[in-house]
Every structure is written in C-alpha cells, then in structure tokens.
C-alpha cells in the first residue's frame, strides 16, 4: 500500500476547471506544459476527464452560475484528490468579492460539500509558473 501511495505523488493528473475566471490564469497554466517549465518531468499531465484526475485546478472567483458545476465536477473526481485554488480569485474571490453574482471563493464553496476537502492556495494574478509547481508539490506533501 505504501508504494502505491508513493506512486501517487509521482503521477499527478490535473483537470483544469474554469469557474468564471478572466482567462488570464487559464493562459498561464499552459505555460507549465512548454519546454521551459515542462511539468511532465514530475509526472504531471493535463487530462480531459475529471474521472481520471488527481488534482482539480480551479481558476476564478466562483459565481452563482459556476457553483453547481464546480460541486458536480468535485463529486465526479475519484478520491483522494487535491483541489488547487488558483490565482487571487480562486483564493479569495479577488476584486470581485463584493459583486452581486459571486457566491464565494473556491474553499468556501467546497467546504459546504465536503468539509475534509484538501485545498492548496496559489495566490497571484496570475501566479508565476514556479509558484504553481511549488504549490502543487507542497500540496502533495500534505496528502
């Protein structure tokens, strides 16, 4: 069992989910797959279906429209899974915090569904690629 747990840290498949983001973080994520940062050397890759995912990369301040979708995708992801609240908006709803349509940052929405959800915060607008790599690695140590 221990070796299986260890291999979990060496192979993280990420599902990228955009919940009312301004698209800036979404563009920045792609940088991780380029030759300069190449996260595949850590075994991290992007997958197309939440069923395959080990980490949900959630960008954006969650609005009322996106909330049920976020919860649905979280339920669809096999556990254990890591949730990455990505960018200033993901961590705290950012400058949109007081807007009428915003129902809260990622952690507040997810804790309603699953109080034990494992959430990593990567602040920045958008975060630097180095910060993203470091955030995910720290999150893995916490699991």
């Amino acid at each position, binding site marked *: *069992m221990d*070796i*299986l*747990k*260890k*291999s*979990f840290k*060496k*192979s993280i498949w990420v599902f990228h989910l955009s919940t009312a983001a301004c698209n800036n973080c979404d563009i920045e994520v792609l940088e991780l797959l*380029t*030759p300069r940062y*190449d996260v*595949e*050397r*850590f*075994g991290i890759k992007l*997958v*197309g*279906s939440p*069923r*395959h995912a*080990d980490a949900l990369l959630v960008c954006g301040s969650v609005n009322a429209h996106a909330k049920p979708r976020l919860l649905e995708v979280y339920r*669809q992801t*096999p*556990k*254990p899974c890591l949730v990455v609240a990505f960018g200033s908006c993901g961590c705290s709803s950012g400058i949109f915090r007081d807007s009428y349509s915003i129902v809260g940052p990622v952690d507040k929405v997810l804790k309603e569904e699953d109080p034990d959800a494992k959430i990593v915060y990567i602040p920045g607008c958008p975060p630097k690629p180095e910060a993203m790599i470091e955030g995910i690695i720290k999150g893995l140590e916490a699991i």
Partner: protein
Amino acid sequence: MRLFIYYFVFPGFIFASVVGLLTVWLDRKVSARIQWRYGPPWYQGFADIGKLLYKEVIIPEEAFGSGFMAAPLFGLASVTLAVTILCVSFFGMSEGFIGDIIVVWYLFAIPAIALIYIGSTSGNPLSSVGVSREIKLLLSYDLPMIIVIVMIASKAGSFSIRAVMEWQRINGSNISSWYGIIAFAVAIFCIQAKLGRVPFDLPEAETELGSGILMELSGGVLAAYELSKAIMLFGLPIFLIILFWGKGIIGGVLMYLLIVVLLILIKNTNPRVRIDHAMKYFWGWMSGAAILAGILAYFGV
C-alpha cells in the same frame, strides 16, 4: 505448471507489462525530446499504474456495474494471451499451432471490443460518440491488415508463426523485398490505429471529446486498460517482427526499437484525422497498397 509460468511470468503478464511500461516511458520521453522538453523519469509508467490502483473506482449510475468492471480485465487477459502465444513461438519455447497468426490478431482485437462495451454501457453521450468512432476504426484498419497477413502466410504456405519464421530464415526476410517494404508501411499504420495513437486517436480524442470512450473509467478499471495498452505496445511490434523479420533475438531487439521509434515519429508529426478520412485512408490507399504488395509477392518481386 509450465503453461502457468508462460502465461503469468515469462513471457506473459509480468515480463510483457514491464517491457510494455518501459516502452510507454520511451514513447513519452522521445516525444518530449522531439518537443525540446525533458520528459518523465523511467518509472513513470509504473507510477501511473500504481497511482490508479490506489484511487477510488467510481461506477456511473447508468452503467451496468459488473460488466463495467470486468470488461477491461477481459481485454487485459486476452492481450496477455496474445503476447504469450507470440513470444513463446518467437523465443522457440514451443512449436505453436496451425492458425496461431489469426488467433493472435483477433485476440488483439478484444481490448477494442471491451472498450466498445464499456463506452456504450457507461451512459455518457461523449463516450457513445467515441464508441461509434472506435467501431468504424476497428472495421477500417482490419481490412488492409488482414490482406497483409494473408499475403505473408500464403507466401510461407502456412498460417503458423513458426512456419512464417522458418520460411524467412531460408528465403530471407520479407522486408528485404519490394512487396515486404510496402506491406510493412501498411502494417505500421494499421498498428498505429490499433493502438489508438495520434493520428488515429479519434475514439479518445482528448481535447475534442474529453477522453471520449475512456471518459467514465477511473481507478483500477483505467489501470487495467492502461496496462493492456502498454502490453499491446509491446506485443504488436513483436507481431510485425515475426511477420517481416523473423530471425534472431538481437536483430529482433533492434527491429523492435526501430518500429517503436517509427510509431513515435508518426505520432508526433501528424494531427488527428477525421473518422471519414481515416476510413477512406484505410479502405482506399492502404488496402490498395496491400493488394499491390500482394500482386508483387505473387510475381516474387
């Protein structure tokens, strides 16, 4: 007992999955180097399988549960059997039986059929699009490959792996003649489609259908599928080596690396084709080339 060891240890399940997962790593590493990236470490394939086994398995509400769980295992078992039959004959551990080439080719088709079953039982609309594509792809690449197999078997005068290898040992490898080169090109593309790799990855088109036919697979079920794909990546090049090269272990290893690198290069230099293009390609150009190779073989060129 001997059959048990053949099937589970060498050259069956354990050997084939280790070599297959190392080939998966080679595939990802070479692809990464082609794109000027560093690429994953050598144990990546093993880590992926271990991780998937550690994860929870989710069975969709609409799915037929036990069938959903069992189908990838059927695929895995039949691929392992196919590889065992191939390798036992290739390493000279057994005489094989008449018609084992046909048996092996259809055992390799069972993972695709299992996948069709899973995709259609999972109740996901995107999966069902993937299923329809997988069925069409299965029908299209089978025709040219069967023509090639029949051609080579009739050249050797028998549908047995040993006889094909023996014939090539006496008369020279198939690939050293014109018909062999054409048939080899056809077979490489058929294998690419059978492995579901770019440019023929339409059933699981990741950006378009969100993994399509595999969409609802998770945890151990996905691990079984990934493992059977890794074993196929080991078994299908061996199949080609037997059909076209047929001699010696050392030459076989070099030939294996050559075929794998060819598959990787095809994968990295082509975009995904549409399903109608794929069918036109296999039923038109590839079948035509296979028939041309058959005519050349008849005249002994």
